[in-house]
């Protein structure tokens, strides 16, 4: 039940399943959101390891003072590429991978709205990544001006910088396509009765993330394009000689860069908000306030970019404004943390590995938040800017935050898929866990049979008849069969069902849908 390849090849749809491509072609031509989600996750894993190798090299060099194994210029390349690869290659694609897997399932859509664009937005990534990594091999080495690529240092850099600029362009195009796809899917392909305020929180966070992506990725593309023309076509956007200003690059970059950090963390908020209720056996606390908090974070993220630039010498009024705007972010973020803790409060907690990651997320992400608060205070930031304090701050948020959530999601997914590929730290004695699948069990308990409705809801929704056969198979299958026998359907329903608000959606929507389903 993977893909609909024939459709792709012929350009007009006959549901002819005789020519399923197999092997590598299956993955290259796939338009199935789950396949593409899997591709995203594998890509992200590979890039995570690549970026990890760079990080290990950095730490090896820093094992003791003095120069040991790499020279300073190469060291700068390592830090630059580590940043770019981890951000654009590991974290963002992983988030898109989970969105591909879960968003259609959670909202009862048959697939992503633009299935072929989905394929294209993934397959741009390997090319961009190759361009980025191969820049190590060109004369002058890879870009070494930091992942922020500040002009004029990046203007004087070698050919590696051009590779990086083009790679960023391609990665940006991919992200924008992915975001358009996700927004369209969420806004247009929800099952009947699935109102916006009944969507699982993961869907909400991704909807907001996707808007952020569309708003700011073009800004980054603009910034690096200006850099490119400054480098090669004699413009002086960032050169004072021609009336430009080097600081303008920083303004443009951080106008992208700050929403970007929320692009990387918001999907993780959604994941944690999904995992936590399942293992607490208790509905998410404050669903509506979670949605509003996510929205406020996204809006605020556009008005505080210059807190990355407190040392460039902006006027006092600017510093105070950006300081206060930055501190305001702590309010919705705090609300989220409080809600998570309240979700656990008086629950019936078990500690399977996804839950451990979720708890680890809350604990360590909050440390990232507190260090962020310290950094928001302009005078303190002036001491801490460009020091390891900042490095520590964003690694708390990105590693202990985003990455922990992704690990948790991966394990939950694995668990639901019944693959048992990944180990569960607590699984050996299995005293706290259900016999077959821990999360599934937890969800079933929570759902009290709602899963059944969810499956039918999903099957009936089917606004794009691309997956006729697929929905038919589900339609034919009962809920339990879907959970046990057909792995994929099990995930859909279980994770989606973990959000209790669906109960009413399903009930109301189903009846309505059934009335008009056979018109």
């Amino acid at each position, binding site marked *: 039940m993977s893909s609909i390849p024939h459709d792709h090849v012929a*350009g*007009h*749809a006959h549901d002819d399943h005789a020519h399923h491509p197999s092997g590598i072609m299956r993955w290259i031509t796939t338009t199935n959101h789950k396949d593409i989600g899997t591709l995203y996750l594998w890509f992200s894993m590979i890039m995570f390891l690549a970026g990890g190798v760079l990080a290990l090299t950095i730490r090896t060099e820093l094992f003791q003072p003095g120069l040991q194994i790499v020279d300073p210029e190469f060291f700068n390349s390592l830090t630059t590429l580590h940043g770019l690869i981890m951000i654009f290659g590991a974290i963002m694609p992983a988030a898109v991978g989970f969105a591909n897997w879960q968003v259609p399932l959670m909202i009862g859509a048959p697939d992503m709205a633009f299935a072929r664009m989905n394929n294209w937005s993934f397959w741009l990534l390997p090319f961009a990544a190759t361009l980025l990594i191969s820049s190590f091999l060109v004369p002058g080495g890879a870009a070494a001006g930091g992942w922020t690529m500040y002009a004029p240092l990046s203007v004087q850099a070698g050919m590696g910088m051009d590779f990086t600029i083009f790679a960023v362009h391609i990665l940006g195009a991919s992200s924008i396509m992915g975001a358009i796809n996700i927004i369209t899917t969420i806004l247009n392909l929800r099952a009947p009765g699935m109102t916006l305020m009944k969507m699982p929180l993961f869907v909400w966070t991704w909807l907001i993330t996707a808007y952020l992506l569309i708003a700011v990725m073009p800004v980054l593309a603009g910034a690096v394009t200006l850099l490119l023309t400054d480098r090669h076509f*004699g413009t002086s956007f960032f*050169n*004072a*000689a*021609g*009336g430009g200003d080097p600081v303008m690059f920083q303004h443009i970059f951080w106008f992208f860069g700050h929403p970007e950090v929320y692009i990387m963390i918001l999907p993780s908020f959604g994941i944690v908000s999904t995992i936590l209720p399942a293992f607490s056996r208790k509905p998410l606390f404050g669903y509506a306030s979670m949605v509003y908090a996510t929205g406020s974070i996204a809006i605020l993220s556009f008005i505080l970019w210059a807190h990355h630039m407190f040392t460039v*010498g902006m*006027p006092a009024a600017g510093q105070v404004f950006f300081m206060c705007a930055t501190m305001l972010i702590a309010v919705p973020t705090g609300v989220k943390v409080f809600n998570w803790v309240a979700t656990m409060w008086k629950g019936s907690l078990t500690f399977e590995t996804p839950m451990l990651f979720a708890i680890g997320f809350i604990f360590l992400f909050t440390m990232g938040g507190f260090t962020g608060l310290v950094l928001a205070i302009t005078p303190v930031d002036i001491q801490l800017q460009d020091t390891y304090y900042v490095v520590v701050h964003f690694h708390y948020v990105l590693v202990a935050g985003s990455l922990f959530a992704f690990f948790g999601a991966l394990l939950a997914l694995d668990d639901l898929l019944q693959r048992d590929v990944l180990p569960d730290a607590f699984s050996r004695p299995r005293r706290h866990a259900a016999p077959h699948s821990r999360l599934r069990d937890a969800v079933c308990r929570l759902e009290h049979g709602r899963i059944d409705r969810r499956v039918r809801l999903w099957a009936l929704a089917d606004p794009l*008849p691309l997956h006729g056969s697929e929905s038919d198979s589900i339609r034919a299958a009962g809920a339990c069969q879907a959970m046990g026998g057909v792995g994929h359907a099990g995930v859909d329903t279980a994770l989606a069902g973990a959000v209790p608000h669906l109960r009413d959606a399903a009930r109301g929507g189903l009846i309505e849908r059934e009335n008009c389903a056979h018109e």
Partner: protein
Amino acid sequence: MTALPVHSNRVLLAKLCVVVVVMFGFGFAMIPFYNKICDVTGLRDIDLADKVNNTQIDTSRSIRIELDANLNKLPWRFRPLTPIVSVHPGELAQVVYEVENTTDRPMTGQAVPSYGPRRAGEYFKKLECFCFTKQSFTPHEKRQMTVVFVVDPKLPGDVATITLSYTFFEVEGNKT
């Protein structure tokens, strides 16, 4: 989905071609558009002499003007002949910078002014400045260049010192 006739593909192609043409056209239409914006907002007027409306000399206070010269990767000599002058707000003053091209090739440079504190910039009116145009130098040419300026009497009272700093950049493109 139903099978589409070949005709509709052609229509789509034609539409897409129109979109391409319009987008290119839009790109070129941006040139006069931006020119107009710059004219209206005065964004590009950095190389024009400032207008002085109020020439009332405020002798009650004097402003210390520190002159500063920088070179951005240029093998020249560039310095103010007097590093510090004192002026009254509203008073017309003239300072001289000396530039020498120490290389064996003709070079063109552009000087960019900057002010410390930054907010003093808007009160520092330059009537004549070598920074308004590109400056070309023959090999080993040494030239003195003047700046005529007035400090606006509206300058905030807590600013007692203004640093006028010039940085000479080579104008790229004249290099080879």
